[in-house]
């Protein structure tokens, strides 16, 4: 985006939700309460893999204050959900496949009674053998977790002839990388509130990342008419992919329909840890070959992704692992084999970076290893192989639009940290007490990631803008504000085109009853797609108000100018304010725009968690299920970040904007891995890298 050209776009503007978020007047899903509401609590599986022989709820039902205890028998629909494949039961039937499986749902007058009732439900389990090693899942004699087997998805791709590529190469490096399971650790655990009216219309205010798809999933699982389900999900207390799949929504709908009362479900932190989707643990083996001059000639990739108990988004995540396995580089001979498998290890799904992160950790490590073997500057090696506009790379992605990878590399090459890196590294070798225990390393890593869902998937957004009688406008947008600032960004786009102050634009967020379907709030697509839809809606809106004004003023619409909340004639003699136009219009002024970014700096620190965090599982059980044992870096750990934007506008984005959410989180971990190697000469290929691992490695060298 070219900053400075516009009145609202590209300006540092106070977020439209800043005040209500700070003063507490904005209600998140977990903030909703009502007198007489029913508290829902979920009984989770006792075993990571077991047959359920029977469920006895009688004693729980007898506990005073318990309103209802529901099992799969109370569900009329398919009792299944899943974004890609509906294989996960809302309430388990005859089998549980991970410790987060929901077995029964209690509704009670208080949270405490609901909690107590959970202990009174008697489930007769027969524990089954576990499948916890994803390598075992591929074996023919493995126990089958689902009728269709243990493979969620597999991908195989070949281009050229890797064997010949390796033959002619001067250097071949082969390493296996292992990336850990991670938790999104959003602030607000999964929460929602539901009620049902006399006509059977369900209203669910919930966390989520796609209100319209949640609506479909509820209707399908419970066999309830979709038109009688209204999802309201404007504000969510963080998600990062972790609320993309269904969490509380279907359970809330079920509870409200069964009790007829307002209902609340709010997962505890522990329940969140065991039940939610995580970042996929992925094992990636890469064999990469280059010529003396640095030209990459062949690349073989083997990837195995542990999806856990149910499919959710394992397939699409594997697609992104495979799609990004070459990084942003041209490699003529390529062979990729990837599998996503089922295991009893919790469940994994969408997580910021969505597979691209894991692929880049491996590829960006490979690049530095090759550079060292060739005695080349690692940035020059990258520049040598960098993809450029017009290239077809990876598994056939075409770079049709403008992008600035080579320009970014040139910029990095010229940066003082890179230019003077030897001096910066040696600055600590001064023999002083203060520095003699310190080592410094300089690392680099790159990443590429698209905006939007990618080729072949419908990916659209729609915005409606309508004029109020007081001259303000309502802006209806169906995507979700999960903290990223998109509602502010979208409002900036509208304000720019309408030339109307931000505060005169009332934002109405995700509500299936009021907004149009704008797709998911994922894949770094909101600012791009919803932003562009808003731009088109605003242009259509301006055309409409000009038509109304033209008729009233007796001029042709083409001669009118729009600005500062009014429409004026070219000579400035005639003018109508937005309020006057609203009153003059014979019918409500409303315009739609259909289509398919500017909060950037701090995102870079998001890659840090890779080096810290890990969900630790033992035989299918989570060992660290609280924020005191699952340690998330805090603002104290965030390093100083200098952002050097290379501005190459995206011709298809609103005002040339492009998304930055995910692509900038990806290179942090491999850059640090490369820096650690630079500092101490130890190459880590397994995440996280803790101080304990570094000490152990250093002891080994000694």
């Amino acid at each position: 985006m070219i900053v400075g050209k516009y009145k609202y776009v590209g300006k540092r503007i106070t977020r439209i939700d800043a005040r209500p978020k700070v003063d507490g007047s904005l209600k998140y899903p977990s903030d909703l309460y009502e007198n007489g509401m029913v508290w829902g609590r979920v009984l989770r599986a006792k075993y990571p893999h077991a047959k359920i022989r029977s469920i006895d709820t009688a004693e729980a039902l007898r506990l005073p204050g318990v309103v209802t205890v529901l099992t799969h028998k109370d569900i009329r629909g398919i009792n299944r959900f899943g974004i890609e494949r509906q294989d996960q039961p809302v309430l388990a039937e005859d089998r549980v496949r991970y410790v987060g499986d929901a077995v029964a749902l209690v509704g009670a007058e208080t949270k405490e009674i609901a909690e107590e009732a959970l202990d009174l439900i008697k489930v007769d389990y027969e524990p089954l053998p576990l499948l916890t090693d994803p390598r075992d899942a591929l074996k023919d004699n493995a126990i089958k977790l689902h009728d269709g087997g243990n493979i969620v998805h597999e991908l195989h791709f070949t281009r050229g002839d890797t064997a010949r590529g390796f033959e002619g190469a001067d250097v071949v490096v082969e390493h296996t990388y292992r990336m850990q399971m991670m938790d999104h650790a959003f602030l607000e655990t999964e929460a929602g509130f539901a009620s049902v009216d006399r006509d059977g219309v369900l209203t669910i205010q919930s966390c989520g990342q796609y209100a319209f798809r949640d609506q479909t999933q509820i209707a399908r699982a419970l066999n309830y008419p979709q038109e009688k389900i209204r999802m309201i999900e404007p504000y969510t207390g963080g998600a990062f992919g972790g609320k993309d799949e269904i969490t509380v929504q279907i359970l809330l709908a079920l509870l409200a329909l069964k009790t007829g009362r307002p209902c609340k479900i709010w997962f505890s932190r522990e329940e969140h840890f065991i039940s939610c989707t995580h970042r996929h643990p992925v094992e990636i083996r890469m064999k990469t070959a280059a010529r003396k001059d640095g030209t990459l000639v062949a690349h073989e990739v083997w990837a195995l992704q542990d999806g856990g108990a149910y499919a959710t988004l394992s397939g699409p995540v594997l697609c992104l692992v495979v799609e990004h396995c070459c990084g942003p580089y041209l490699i003529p001979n390529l062979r990729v084999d990837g599998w996503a498998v089922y295991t009893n290890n919790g469940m994994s799904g969408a997580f910021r970076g969505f597979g691209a992160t894991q692929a880049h950790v491996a590829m960006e490590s490979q690049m530095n290893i090759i550079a060292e073997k060739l005695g080349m500057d690692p940035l020059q090696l990258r520049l040598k192989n960098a993809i450029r506009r017009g290239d077809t790379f990876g598994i056939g992605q075409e770079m049709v639009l403008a992008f600035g990878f080579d320009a970014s590399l040139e910029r990095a090459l010229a940066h003082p940290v890179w230019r003077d890196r030897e001096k910066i590294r040696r600055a600590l070798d001064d023999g002083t007490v203060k520095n003699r225990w310190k080592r410094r390393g300089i690392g680099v890593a790159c990443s590429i990631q698209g905006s939007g869902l990618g080729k072949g998937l419908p990916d659209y957004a729609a915005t409606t803008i309508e004029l109020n009688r007081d001259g303000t406008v309502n802006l209806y947008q169906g995507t979700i504000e999960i903290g990223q600032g998109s509602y502010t960004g979208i409002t900036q786009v509208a304000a720019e085109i309408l030339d109307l102050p931000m505060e005169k634009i009332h934002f109405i967020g995700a509500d299936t009853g009021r907004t149009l379907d704008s797709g998911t709030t994922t894949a770094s697509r909101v600012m791009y797609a919803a932003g562009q839809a808003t731009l088109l809606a605003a242009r259509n809106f301006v055309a409409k108000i000009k038509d109304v004004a033209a008729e009233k003023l007796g001029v042709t619409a083409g001669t009118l100018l729009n600005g500062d909340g009014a429409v004026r004639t070219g000579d400035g003699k005639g003018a109508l304010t937005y309020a006057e136009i609203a009153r003059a219009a014979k019918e409500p002024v409303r315009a739609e725009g259909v289509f398919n970014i500017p909060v950037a700096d701090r995102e870079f620190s998001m890659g840090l968690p890779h080096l810290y965090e890990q969900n630790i599982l033992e035989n299918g059980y989570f060992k660290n299920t609280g924020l005191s044992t699952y340690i998330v870096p805090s603002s104290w750990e965030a390093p100083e970040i200098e952002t050097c934007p290379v501005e190459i506008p995206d011709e298809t984005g609103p005002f040339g904007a492009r998304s930055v959410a995910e692509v900038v989180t990806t290179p942090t971990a491999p850059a640090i891995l490369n820096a650690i190697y630079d500092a101490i000469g130890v190459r880590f290929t397994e995440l996280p890298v803790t101080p304990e691992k570094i000490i152990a490695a250093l002891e080994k060298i000694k």
Partner: protein
Amino acid sequence: MKTIETHSPRTLEEALALLEMMGDGIRVIAGATDVVVQVLERKKDPCALLNLSYLEELRYIREEGDLLAIGALTTHREIERSPLVMAHAPLLAEAAFIVGSPQIKNLGTVGGNIANASPVADTVPALMVLGATLILRSRGGTRTVPLAGFASGPGRTILKPGELITQVLFPVLRHDEISFYERLGQRRLLSISKVGVAFRARRRDNRMTNVAIALGAVAPRVIMAPNTAAFLEGKEYAAVVAEEAARIVETESKAITDMRSTDTYRNRMAGALLIRGMARVCEGITGL
């Protein structure tokens, strides 16, 4: 979740009477920062709770001659901010500062930190090198015990039925004494210590005497490092001396591997923290 009967006496006498009457059936809480978590995670299932948080009489920091007396219900926040503690036992202020979050520090008490008998309690190593004693009260009377022998293992103490810690008492540091508390956690703040080192010594003409070192999180309870202290006794500070002391303290550290860290890391870092702390208090070098 079931309801737990909670008694909240207003005086120490009342509390001691209740404790004697209820015997083992009641669990004492002060700030409840540990017990509430244990109950919520269903690791503990007490029948009843004795809530001491209203006992204002046990909430004070005062000088008693050459001694500093701290009431058992004094919070970490109060200790961390106390001018008396900062002047007379700065390492205790450092230890109280590192505990949890402001919310936890406003609830958690020094008496609770000691009674919980966790090897990772941050105030305990600091108090140990200060040579602290505890005053224990019961209906039957009062006794004074050294803090060093108070914990017998993780969560186990020599407290008798009916007894409460009412006061922590230690000699104030003299102007020629140096001290520090250094620790490492999984992140800088808001994390449980993986290893902690408390140090105090008298320093005259750069020569160290009366050296005391205590280590947290490296044994079933907080331990002293007598060999390291003996090595440093009478020596002049120098970076190489600190490094040699570090090698000794590593052998005195008896850490285990658990979810938070490894034995090797903890033992090595006990040495590193000794070097870091000594550089800070002997040479004014920070950021080591």
